[in-house]
């Protein structure tokens, strides 16, 4: 019995293995996929843009969110991203200098706005006076060494002359997303986050906020760049072009960025 059924079994196994392998090959062969490293603050608008991009062009954008500084370190060590949406300009420039990004592909896709936000209504007044009068234990900011919104927050505090006084109360989020978690869960009474993270339908969704005037810190110009790995990937170049389109820009502006 065993001898007669074995060829049949072997054939079935070979067929299964072949189908599985072809499925994998199909995945690998699809060039209409682009891996994008996205700065955390741009998570919400990027998800909408990726959806619209897929609808309009048929290409799939695989998004990864995280701290800009971390992405630079990962890309420098071979991370498989095709496109990088940074939260600043220096990181994109640095990748260009080290030939990890394609020359002449860099452009500003958004200009960020910093906001001092609290999950509780009434904590933050519209002029940010709470920083001076502040009766709070913890002020959350993103890690200034790796997150541009974090270093912008430090700049704001220094410009206002409040840094030395408030430094002991600072809590550092690993990236702007974790910073917002600290504030959203109430563990930090208030914190500096990106306007895009708290905007809902054009207004501050919940809690209280002070939209930081742009003059208090260097502009948060966020640059996008085509990475060396993405060279020749049609989906990658299509995505970068799409980011410059009117549809995408309208979406970006609606999320609280300037352009």
């Amino acid at each position, binding site marked *: 019995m065993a001898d007669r059924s074995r060829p049949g079994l072997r054939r079935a196994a070979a067929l299964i293995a072949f189908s599985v392998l072809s499925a994998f090959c199909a995945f690998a062969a699809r060039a209409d996929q682009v891996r994008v490293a996205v700065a955390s603050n741009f998570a919400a608008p990027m998800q909408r843009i990726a959806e619209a991009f897929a609808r309009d062009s048929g290409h799939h954008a695989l998004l990864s969110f995280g*701290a800009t*500084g*971390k992405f*630079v*370190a990962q890309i*420098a060590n071979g991370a498989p991203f095709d496109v990088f949406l940074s939260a600043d300009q220096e990181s994109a420039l640095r990748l260009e200098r080290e030939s990890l990004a394609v020359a002449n592909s860099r452009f500003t896709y958004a200009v960020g706005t910093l906001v001092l936000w609290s999950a509780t209504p009434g904590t933050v007044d519209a002029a940010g006076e709470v920083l001076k009068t502040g009766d709070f*234990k*913890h002020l*959350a900011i993103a*890690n200034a*060494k*790796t997150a541009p919104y974090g270093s912008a927050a430090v700049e704001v505090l220094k410009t206002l002359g409040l840094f030395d006084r408030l430094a002991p109360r*600072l*809590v*550092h*989020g*690993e990236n702007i997303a974790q910073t917002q*978690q*600290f504030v959203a*869960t*109430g*563990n*930090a009474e208030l914190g500096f986050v990106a306007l895009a993270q708290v905007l809902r339908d054009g207004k501050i969704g919940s809690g209280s906020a002070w939209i930081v005037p742009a003059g208090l810190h260097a502009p948060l110009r966020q640059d996008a760049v085509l990475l060396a790995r993405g060279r020749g990937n049609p989906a990658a170049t299509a995505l970068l072009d799409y980011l410059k389109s009117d549809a995408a820009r309208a979406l970006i502006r609606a999320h609280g960025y300037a352009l």
Partner: protein
Amino acid sequence: MSAADLQAIWLTVKLASLVTLILLVIATPLAWWLARTRSWLKSPVVALVALPIVLPPTVLGFYLLVALGPNGPLGRLTQDLGWGLLSFTFAGLVAGSVLYSLPFVVQPLQNAFEAIPERVLETAATLRASPIDTFFSVVVPLARPAYLTALVLGFAHTVGEFGVVLMIGGNIPRETRVVSIAIYDHVEAMDYASAHGLSALMLIFSFAVLLVLYTVNPTGKKAK
């Protein structure tokens, strides 16, 4: 090694020592009860104690973040007690680490206690030893290798903790910036020299700890 890194090392040592001490005190009665009880509660409690081994540290950290916040059950409790919030504090890290390292201390002790034959305890009782006396004169000496294992594992595990601290620590120098976070920071900022220095130190320390453990507490034929 920079002053900040030295502070991180000192903070880590403080945290691990305190947590290990607290755990030895908590784990002893718990492990004893688990070893000796026949109650139906044994299985669920054993599973609960073992949970931190299986649970990703970020899950534990995330739930702690929410629970310790002003809207969470633990946060409301600490606020009512006048302690404020535990998030972003050294005390919060101690609490989180005690939970996270609990199974590493309870399990060796439980195994050792279970291995003590009932006969030995009965003999002690016939010699008029009270339960407390029996425990300290008979049980503890027999379980000494297990205590060493539990102590070393608890300490080393807390030193290596990262996920929980990342979620509830807030990376505050001298308060919650332990060595694992400091190394992560250095790598993110691409300061590989500092990252190498701290990591090498941790590697040597971990190896030394395990070497001591297995020399003093040999496994296999020599163990008796």
